[in-house]
């Protein structure tokens, strides 16, 4: 007899026509076989990560040295055209993940780690410590976070490190809540109780048994947060409050072409923006995939 569940998840992907006891890795592969959306997402993320490492090396032109061609529209010599300084846009677009993706990746990992620690504390110490943590993270939500990021980066100096720090801090509450609620529900499960009966210490249970299981949805959220982190980092530089030109970075490149676009020189902003939009979409898809795989476990 199948039973109704009050809460149902969103599924962007087809239901696997297989038994319930399928391993997560196999399910992931199955998803890739069945869904073109999944294939697109994984391809995008793979390319983005590849460019993060190799982008600057395979760029055909120097990234911050002007060519004599100014405002040239896309051609076979300059695939994506050139901007007002004569920079080759294609080279800079494929080199940019070195900054955008790295910032987002480091910030996401930082906030995942910090958020998980705090989430664990919030779940296991439910006295005033936990209460304080939750109230604190609630208060952060009421902040105009983007304005706070602008204030911080301009005030502390527009360095990569500062950008990473603020993006990481802003994402901590999401992970805190997620990991906390996950840990709370896992704690109820039988295997934790059996470990308690064996007399393991509280922290050991937390680290050995609960955290590893609670982290998996954390990874799904991390992929989604990656996307947002890229948008925030680029948004900051778009406003002049982030990575500074002529560093090849999507946000500042978009800003550099913002005035040209209403004069018809569309290529200067559109290519970096499209690259970024695709990347963010890719990470969102992968996050959704991980969630789908997770929710199929029974």
């Amino acid at each position: 007899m199948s039973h109704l569940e009050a809460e149902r998840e969103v599924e962007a992907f087809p239901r696997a026509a297989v038994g319930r006891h399928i391993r997560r890795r196999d399910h992931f592969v199955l998803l890739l076989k069945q869904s073109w959306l999944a294939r697109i997402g994984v391809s995008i993320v793979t390319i983005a990560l590849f460019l993060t490492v190799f982008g600057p090396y395979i760029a055909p032109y120097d990234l911050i040295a002007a060519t004599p061609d100014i405002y040239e529209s896309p051609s076979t010599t300059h695939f994506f055209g050139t901007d007002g300084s004569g920079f080759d846009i294609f080279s800079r677009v494929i080199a940019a993940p070195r900054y955008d993706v790295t910032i987002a990746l480091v910030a996401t990992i930082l906030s995942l780690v910090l958020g998980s620690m705090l989430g664990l504390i919030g779940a296991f110490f439910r006295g005033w410590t936990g209460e304080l943590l939750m109230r604190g993270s609630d208060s952060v939500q009421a902040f105009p976070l983007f304005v706070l990021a602008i204030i911080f980066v301009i005030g502390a100096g527009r360095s990569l490190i500062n950008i990473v720090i603020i993006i990481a801090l802003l994402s901590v509450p999401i992970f805190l809540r997620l990991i906390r609620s996950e840990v709370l529900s896992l704690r109820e499960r039988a295997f934790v109780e059996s470990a308690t009966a064996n007399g393991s210490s509280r922290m050991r249970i937390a680290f050995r048994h609960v955290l590893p299981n609670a982290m998996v949805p954390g990874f799904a959220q991390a992929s989604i947060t990656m996307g947002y982190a890229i948008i925030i980092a680029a948004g900051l530089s778009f406003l002049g409050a982030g990575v500074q030109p002529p560093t090849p970075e999507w946000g500042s490149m978009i800003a550099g072409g913002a005035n040209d676009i209403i004069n018809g020189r569309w290529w200067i902003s559109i290519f970096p923006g499209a690259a970024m939009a695709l990347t963010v979409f890719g990470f969102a898809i992968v996050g959704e995939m991980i969630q789908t795989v997770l929710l199929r476990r029974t």
Partner: protein
Amino acid sequence: MKTLILKRLCFVLPQLVLVAAVVFVLLRILPVDPVDRIAGQFATPELRAQVEEELGLDRSLGTQLGSYLAGIFQGDFGTSWLTSDPVREEMVERFPLTLQLITLAFFVALAIAIPLGRASAAREGSRVDKAAQSYSLFAGAQPDFWWGLMFLFLFFFKAGILPAPLGVLTPGRQAPDEITHFILLDALIRGQLGVFVDALRHLALPVITLAFVLTGPFTKMTRQSVLSVSKSEYMLYADATGLSERAMKRSLLRNGLAPVLTLAAIFFGFLLGGAALIETVFTLNGLGLYAVQRMLVVDFPAVQGVVVWMTAFALLMYLIMDLLYAALDPRVRYSE
């Protein structure tokens, strides 16, 4: 209901004070030095001391904070270091534009997302559903400022049907005399239809851009929520009692809407700060653009003012949504 409001208000005030204190202290411990900027790097020590005194920076941090908080409670946000005008007046001038922008974007986004989410949930697993889900995943993960530029290119440069991104009115057109400070409302009240249409045309692209990005999460949430209601035990039972089609649909919408509202409130607060980007793209002189510009010239009172103002407004939105939720769902009312 009354106790619910009171309880929430008890939370709101400390939160507001906390936010004001955090941003106040943050601005002063960050390495940026306003005296440097205002007096100039090569100013004499005497001039520096004079500027410091004028800005009130010679007093201890605690005293400064105390008088700032005391001011806020009387509605005084201090004077701008850039223009020497009261910050409150500057904000009152700019905030309505931001609010109009976001509110319109919300209505447009909800008007698209709710039917789309419902259609998607009603045909779960179909092509329509897959397409709607892919769309919402896509739209939810897009940089709005870049889409703003894209739309500008298409609708201004290519099609030429919408105006250049230079403010909310065509340069040279007189704004209506202010009554509510909301330009669309003022134009209507004054009967200046030309101004109304002009402002609407200028707001069209920024609104569409924001709405596009918002439809992502809103559609997803509507679908999820409607789906969970339609698979609930009580909808099955309603079906088993032969409840009329109309009553079924009404339950589906009413029960499914509450979570969407909560999400909307969170996004509203989120977007207040995020509007800075769209306002920059379209040169809309709203509160977000104001915050960015003033931070670049270290106008601390202005920046503090914006953060406190936006937080207060976001908290107000949460409160309103909580009350709406409670009106929709009696369980909240009683469990409080």
